[in-house]
């Protein structure tokens, strides 16, 4: 069976929109549930939560390049300090028709790479010293194409939107639970049965919503990873390089030292140990699945 990267790209884009729509539904259901549970005063939380989450996430989105650079200790390089790496990034830039990003190196023996920046004009793509030492030119080109695919697809923006929505949901349910401590006594006085059922349904929804939001956020991250793999092939027309790179990553057991959850989604391979994160909460699709998809793309000859 062969796979066409255009179809892959389109399907991943569609699924992202579907998942973002799911996030919106969860938010609406949550607001409704809070209304059921706490009465009309609960719905007033929504604008507060939106503003709060926007302020938090927007700051990190807008400064994502500097922030991530500081958190990972990445160091910007130029052509002369790593000619081959710089050259192969330039190659993909030409293939993708995007502006040249800053190229950075992270001193870390674990092979990995990431891309960040709020838009293609402020993009940074970084490679660990481990990945530079363990991969040949073709593999590194695949990795560079994957990272620049994130830039071209504006994944920092997509993930910022997902993080904001998940944040709104978490804040609403958190405040709703706290508020219930104060309003709970009040409600006991004028209790009627309809209200009681509503309150229980509301409570369940308020507890489940943040979990659902987290699941959706992880699912969006996984779709963006698959999309970046497909886009990378569209740039290089060579699935073999990225496939071999992922195989090298799969064999390697060392993980990046900064095992922070906050920046886990930006790496090409998840730095979090796969045994400790369940599949549903994973930020990346299983590496074996990604390799299998790329193998199918290799099988597709000049069709259509």
């Amino acid at each position: 069976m062969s796979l066409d990267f255009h179809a892959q790209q389109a399907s991943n884009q569609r699924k992202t929109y579907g998942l973002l729509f799911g996030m919106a539904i969860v938010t609406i259901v949550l607001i409704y549930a809070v209304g059921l549970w706490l009465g009309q005063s609960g719905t007033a939380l929504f604008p507060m939560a939106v503003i709060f989450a926007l302020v938090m996430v927007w700051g990190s989105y807008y400064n994502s390049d500097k922030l991530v650079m500081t958190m990972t200790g990445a160091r910007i390089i130029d052509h002369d300090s790593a000619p081959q790496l710089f050259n192969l990034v330039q190659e993909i830039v030409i293939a993708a028709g995007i502006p040249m990003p800053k190229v950075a190196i992270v001193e870390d023996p674990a092979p990995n790479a990431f891309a960040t920046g709020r838009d293609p004009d402020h993009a940074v793509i970084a490679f660990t010293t481990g990945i530079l030492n363990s991969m040949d030119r073709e593999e590194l080109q695949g990795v560079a194409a994957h990272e620049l695919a994130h830039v071209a697809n504006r994944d920092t923006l997509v993930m910022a939107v997902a993080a904001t929505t998940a944040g709104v949901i978490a804040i609403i349910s958190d405040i709703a639970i706290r508020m219930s401590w104060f309003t709970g006594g009040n409600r006991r006085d004028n209790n009627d049965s309809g209200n009681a059922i509503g309150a229980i349904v509301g409570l369940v929804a308020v507890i489940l919503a943040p979990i659902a939001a987290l699941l959706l956020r992880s699912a969006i991250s996984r779709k963006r990873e698959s999309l970046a793999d497909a886009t990378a092939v569209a740039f290089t027309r060579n699935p073999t390089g990225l496939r071999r790179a992922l195989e090298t990553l799969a064999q390697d057991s060392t993980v990046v030292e900064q095992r922070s959850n906050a920046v886990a989604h930006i790496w090409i391979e998840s730095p979090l140990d796969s045994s400790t994160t369940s599949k549903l909460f994973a930020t990346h699709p299983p590496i074996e699945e990604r390799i299998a998809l790329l193998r199918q793309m290799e099988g597709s000859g000049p069709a259509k």
Partner: protein
Amino acid sequence: MDLTLIALVVVVLLAIYFIAQYNKLTRLNVQVDEAFAQIEVQLQRRADLIPNLVETVKGYASHESEVLQKVVEARSAATEAHGFNEVAAADGSLTSALRGLLAITENYPDLKASANFIALQEELSTTENKVGFARQYYNDRVRQLNQALVTLPTNFFGGIAKVVKRDFYEVDSPEKRDVPKVSF
């Protein structure tokens, strides 16, 4: 009064729609030009590398003058090429001449081991890749433009925008680039 207002709104919306289609075609057309300019930039970079390459190879393999001469000639033809077809043809002959030169370097271990040549080889292979990707990007843009010119509704605007179908950039060399392993 109401009817004229509705008619006015319809006319304005139609105008916006037409302008959008016109702009889309014009934008695609400009992108093709930009993509071609990118090919020329990369070809120029490659031409700039060649004198250095030829000098380095000469130092170790001076009697391979025939192969070296071919490269030098193909290079000067490429730098003098003007216009789409000429550039593409000159690009093709220089690409195959360079391939011939790189093939003979295999026989000279001293040359291959020299630091100068190793650095040059990286620059040469990246330039080759960049030329290849610039061609690929150009052809993708041409494909988009040509598709817009034959599909609704943009096909109605080709005449007004004075945009016509463009040719794909094809390298006239017997051994074509094998980079596009996956195509459409």
